[in-house]
């Protein structure tokens, strides 16, 4: 059985649309995909936010590419740095593509109009960034192409401008809630995306030949995070609920320099320009931990060192609970011209002027290395090898894996451009030869039931309270340092929160712009994903990249140099996560670089 409709039909109150390519998400990856797809195939972009609100715009420091505009560099060095930075959990074929295609990705953006900072010769200027080195670790290299400290903002604006130029069709403030799968010859095939129109409360079914997920991350599982309120992992959660796997979810990046207590990002570009981390006594402590590249060590290492300094009593401030980012020697001109936004953030939110005083900082949950597994064509995988035809993912929601267990700074703005472009092109190519997968009967059923149940929910639990408990607990027990004991505690908390979530009540009963309902749905995704993160983390009894186990402090290549693959295999509400999550392994692709001890 399948249902018939014409594009634009409204049947039983549900709107039906038909496109060759549907892209979910309008951040960097989604819009980069749209720029490829829209001129060649009928394309729609469904986005929870107006495109320019996407969190790509909050990225600051730069986008890596071995242009060698200011000093010798090569994409091979970039590949090596990416592999080593990811603590050898990077798929090396993918890292090579990332580093090679970086050069054209930057030039594409410049050609589209991106106003990069310039060298005296008028070329794109480049700055230093953590973990990016000359000749396999000899010294920091200037590889990050940048536009002041608003590189992400300029990328987001430039991509949006080019979408306007191409007349890309956006469905703004449409919240994708389901991926419809139709059983064809015994195999589940993606046939449509179902979205909830925030302005009206109406439901839309978008049938498509190709579907691209570019929905970003889920930093809001943590309290202290650089992520936007809207980064609740909806896309990753949708895919999970469909029984498709998630890869390497235990690896979450904590960016070293969040404004203390607030988590607002201060770019690593500050250290790229020469800023120094100091403890309470003013010591440049990174010299002790990473003698060669010091403050420009990769983020996982710097974050761990900061937490260790505080734990050992060398923290600054009245409670000795943060360290200091010292920019005072950079001078007002460098701060005002190359780092104006972060200078203002420190002034506005902490009342600290970086020109004259060091800024209190501590690690902030920043980036999910894990996500929806894809191959280098951005095709989504249903297991270690088999693709889901017509389904693509790119950007933070995806796991290619180019970042392994720890992403290097400036590699995510690169990732969204390289793999966003690949997703767009491959989605078009597939749509050109494929036909529509028929819709099942009543494809909107799941979303309609979810929305109605929550909109009329009148239980005693409050969304804000449950979310806060989750975030507090994740910060306490699943942050930079983890142990089996701490993870066991979070597991219990998440289980109890998931039960209490069944008894929530919302207050807004309306259909139009019901953000109370929206937050209730988002919390459901956060709880699902936090459980996968913690369950995967407990299973990895080693320390690697962003996953640091106090009880297993060493990297164990013999047992664990492989990706985690998590599957939803049972009733998601069962008490014990082990009853519904099954873990498996996926080999790492190694080409040129054998694992070595990671020293900087």
């Amino acid at each position: 059985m399948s249902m018939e409709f014409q594009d634009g039909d409204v049947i039983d109150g549900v709107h039906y649309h038909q496109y060759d390519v549907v892209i979910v998400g309008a951040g960097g990856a989604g819009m980069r995909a749209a720029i490829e797809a829209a001129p060649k195939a009928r394309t729609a972009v469904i986005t929870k936010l107006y495109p320019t609100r996407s969190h790509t715009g909050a990225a600051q420091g730069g986008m890596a590419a071995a242009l060698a505009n200011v000093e010798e560099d090569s994409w091979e060095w970039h590949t090596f740095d990416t592999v080593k930075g990811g603590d050898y959990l990077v798929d090396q074929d993918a890292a090579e593509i990332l580093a090679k295609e970086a050069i054209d990705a930057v030039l594409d953006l410049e050609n589209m109009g991106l106003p990069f900072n310039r060298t005296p010769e008028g070329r794109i200027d480049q700055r230093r960034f953590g973990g990016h080195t000359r000749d396999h670790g000899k010294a920091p290299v200037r590889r990050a192409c940048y536009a002041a400290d608003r590189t992400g903002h300029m990328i987001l604006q430039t991509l949006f401008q080019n979408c306007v130029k191409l007349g890309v069709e956006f469905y703004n403030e449409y919240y994708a809630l389901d991926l419809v799968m139709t059983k064809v010859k015994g195999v589940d095939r993606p046939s449509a995306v179902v979205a909830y129109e925030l302005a009206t409360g109406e439901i839309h079914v978008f049938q498509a030949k190709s579907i691209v997920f570019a929905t970003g991350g889920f930093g809001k599982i943590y309290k202290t995070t650089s992520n936007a309120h809207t980064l609740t992992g909806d896309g990753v959660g949708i895919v999970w609920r469909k029984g498709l796997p998630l890869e390497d979810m235990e690896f979450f990046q904590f960016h070293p320099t969040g404004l203390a207590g607030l988590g607002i990002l201060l770019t690593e570009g500050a250290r790229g320009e020469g800023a120094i981390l100091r403890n309470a006594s003013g010591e440049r402590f990174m010299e002790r931990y990473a003698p060669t590249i010091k403050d420009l060590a990769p983020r996982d290492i710097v974050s761990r060192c900061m937490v260790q300094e505080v734990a050992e009593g060398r923290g600054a401030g009245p409670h000795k609970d943060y360290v200091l980012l010292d920019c005072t020697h950079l001078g007002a001109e460098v701060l005002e011209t190359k780092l104006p936004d972060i200078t203002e953030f420190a002034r506005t939110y902490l009342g600290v002027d970086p020109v004259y005083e060091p800024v209190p900082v501590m690690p902030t949950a920043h980036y999910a290395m894990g996500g929806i597994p894809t191959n280098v064509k951005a095709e989504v995988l249903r297991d270690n090898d088999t693709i889901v035809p017509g389904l693509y993912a790119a950007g933070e929601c995806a796991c290619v894996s180019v970042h392994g267990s720890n992403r290097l700074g400036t590699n995510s703005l690169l990732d969204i451009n390289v793999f966003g472009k690949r997703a767009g092109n491959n989605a078009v190519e597939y749509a050109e030869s494929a036909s529509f997968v028929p819709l099942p009967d009543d494809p909107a059923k799941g979303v309609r039931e979810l929305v109605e149940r929550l909109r009329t929910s009148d239980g005693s639990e409050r969304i804000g309270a449950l979310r806060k408990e989750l975030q507090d607990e994740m910060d306490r027990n699943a942050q930079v340092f983890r142990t089996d004991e701490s993870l066991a505690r979070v597991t219990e908390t998440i289980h109890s929160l998931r039960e209490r979530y069944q008894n929530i009540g919302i207050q807004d009963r309306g259909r139009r712009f019901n953000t109370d309902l929206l937050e209730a749905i988002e919390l459901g995704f956060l709880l699902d994903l936090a459980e996968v993160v913690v369950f995967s983390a407990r299973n990895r009894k080693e320390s690697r990249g962003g996953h640091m186990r106090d009880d297993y402090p060493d990297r164990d290549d013999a047992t664990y140099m492989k990706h985690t693959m998590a599957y939803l295999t049972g009733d998601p509400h069962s008490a014990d996560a082990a009853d519904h999550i099954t873990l498996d392994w996926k080999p790492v692709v190694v080409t040129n670089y054998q694992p070595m001890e990671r020293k900087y």
Partner: protein
Amino acid sequence: MADNPSVEAGLSAFTVTLIIRRFDPETMDEPVWKDYDVELYPTDRVLDALHKIKWEQDGSLTFRRSCAHGICGSDAMRINGRNRLACKTLIKDLDITQPIYVEAIKGLPLEKDLVVDMEPFFASYREIQPFLIADAKPKDGKERIQSVAQREIFDDTTKCILCAACTSSCPVFWTDGQYFGPAAIVNAHRFIFDSRDEAAKVRLDILNDKEGVWRCRTTFNCTEACPRGIQVTQAIAEVKNAILAGKPAIPAGV
């Protein structure tokens, strides 16, 4: 560190009254002002206050927000009669002996509480052709050359986050819905003064229209409202001068 810089500094919370202009299109004909008492620290943002109300008192309070640190442009609203971003306005910077009045930005259709229909705003933006127009590609297949000085003259207008704080603070925009408004002109400026762009003339013609730059009466509301510190009125003046001169004044190349 404590959650809050105020706690760190030993400051205590106090009760603040927010008076918010509420409107539910499904149940009300006209907006009404409703007050809420909230416990806040001096370093809390107005956005924190709105969240406390939504999460602890009234889940139906509706507003847009995302990044919460002034870069995504979602939460422009009128706070004590001035357009600001709720996430960049700290309680300590307001007069807290008085209630804080919060309402939606003006001049765009009100949808619900603090949410307006942004489409007319983006329609004006799209009209000025906000994208680089340049047929000539660099011969070496690399980037276009642009000098540091050429890059500098449009630096300010690249900061725009399209929050609409400027446009919806403009008295001309309030009374004349056809006027492009400051944000569209700022984004036109960003390309008119970009040495790589080849369509300055087209944009200057668009803005020379009766609903273009000449409607600006230099009230400086837009400049005061801009949360990114863009010198909006100056940018508009530079566009006016470029129209009169027939072309923008751009420094010579490298």
